[in-house]
């Protein structure tokens, strides 16, 4: 009997052309080496409720339950990493699912830009573990509900999570009939084998390097920052005659940033404080990394700063701004946040 080491896992991420349909060619997955993406942590779980018959039995014993609706949850955590300017990073499908549209490759300088849109792209996320005899899984119809970019520590990190339509695994594929929604469009009884030469590229972003610009002033006293996006996406999971969720809907999204700076008596810090109290919106720019092709710049527009918390928990006083929300610059712009990789 073999066990599974947590580290013996690779993740592959594919964009879905149709919600809940694993990319395939006449029922065979079109998974490729280039879909691989290094990660630190992955969860991919099928969910199924139990329906309980409510009628009395005449005793205090419960009636055995019946299998209910099916769904999935997923999350991925990985370091920010990109290879060369103008080429999308390995986590591109994840960023597209988060922002709502594909990254745009641009020039002058070479870059990839991710901007918000109101669509809800879905993903198929494959987990392959070794030894190969273990259960292998693919979550499909996975949409991004929330994400967090963590900046300031040694390695800048990204974590994304959300609901999914379902998680198919090797065991289920062998016994489910073709056409069952739990197969995500795949046919046959054999689960695809992992691609033989997974391709991953890029070095990680050192999380404490870069340039932080708060309200047009560059700050060297930033301790850490966390950019959070709550997309508001959720599944339609109460439709009649469907055990599985229908394509997702989306509520108003929320883009937030938390950051901490050392307190000082500079004019810039005082001006920032004044804007927090007056609720004057400011623009915040976090450019993380210094290596060409691997510099990730988050621009947050019209951020309303909360009253900061004075923090004396370490040796030097700090100001903590928590839950700063970014807003679009107009009713038609979707520019609360933009990510540019150069």
């Amino acid at each position, binding site marked *: 009997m073999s066990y599974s080491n947590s580290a013996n896992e690779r993740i592959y991420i594919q964009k879905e052309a149709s919600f*809940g349909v694993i990319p395939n060619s006449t029922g065979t997955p*079109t998974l490729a080496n280039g879909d691989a993406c290094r990660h630190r942590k992955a969860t991919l779980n099928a969910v199924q409720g139990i329906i309980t018959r409510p009628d009395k039995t005449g005793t205090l014993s419960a009636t055995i339950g019946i299998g209910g609706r099916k769904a999935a949850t997923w999350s991925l955590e990985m370091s920010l990493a990109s290879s060369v300017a103008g080429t999308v990073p390995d986590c591109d499908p994840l960023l597209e699912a988060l922002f709502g549209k594909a990254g745009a490759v641009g020039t002058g300088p070479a870059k990839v830009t991710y901007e918000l849109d109101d669509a809800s792209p879905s993903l198929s996320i494959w987990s392959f573990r070794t030894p190969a005899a273990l259960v292998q899984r693919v979550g499909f119809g996975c949409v991004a509900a929330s994400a967090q970019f963590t900046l300031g520590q040694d390695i800048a990190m990204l974590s994304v999570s959300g609901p999914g339509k379902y998680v198919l695994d090797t065991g289920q594929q062998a016994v489910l009939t073709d056409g069952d*929604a739990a197969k995500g469009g795949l046919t046959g009884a054999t689960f695809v084998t992992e691609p033989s030469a997974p391709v991953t*590229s890029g070095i990680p972003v050192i999380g404490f390097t870069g340039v932080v610009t708060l309200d047009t002033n560059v700050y060297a006293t930033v301790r850490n920052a966390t950019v959070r996006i709550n997309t508001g996406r959720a599944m339609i999971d109460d439709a009649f005659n469907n055990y599985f969720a229908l394509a997702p809907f989306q509520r108003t999204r929320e883009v937030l940033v938390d950051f901490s700076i050392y307190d000082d008596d500079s004019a810039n810090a005082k001006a920032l404080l004044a804007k927090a109290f007056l609720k004057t919106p400011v623009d915040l720019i976090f450019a993380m990394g210094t290596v060409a092709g691997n510099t990730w710049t988050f621009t947050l527009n019209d951020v309303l700063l909360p009253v900061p918390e004075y923090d004396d928990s370490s040796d030097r006083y700090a100001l903590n701004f928590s839950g700063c929300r970014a807003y679009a610059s107009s009713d038609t712009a979707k520019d609360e946040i933009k990510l540019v990789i150069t």
Partner: protein
Amino acid sequence: MQYVFVGTESFIGAIKLHRFGQVVELPAELAGGAQIGGCPIVSKPAFDSVRFTAEDLQRYTDVGSHAGATPEFLEKKHRAILAFQAEAVQVRADRATVKPAVEVIDVVQQ
């Protein structure tokens, strides 16, 4: 076929690419898949057409050294990366003809 690495660090299966100008022998099918997957390798003839000097490749083999590289080298590096991106676009176009996907019919589960 020979390809040349023009990125920071990549893996193609067991192959580690971490030196600028590192030459690797790969089947075209595997190399094309790697290019589509974002691995910055360029065919040797295309790389050679950029005309890096022997000194360039010796001096700037470590990507960390590129921050202080000469403008001439950085211009050549830029052209090499453009050559990689052009090849990736071509491979993607060549492979674009695929069989139709099987859609899901949401049958009611009994």
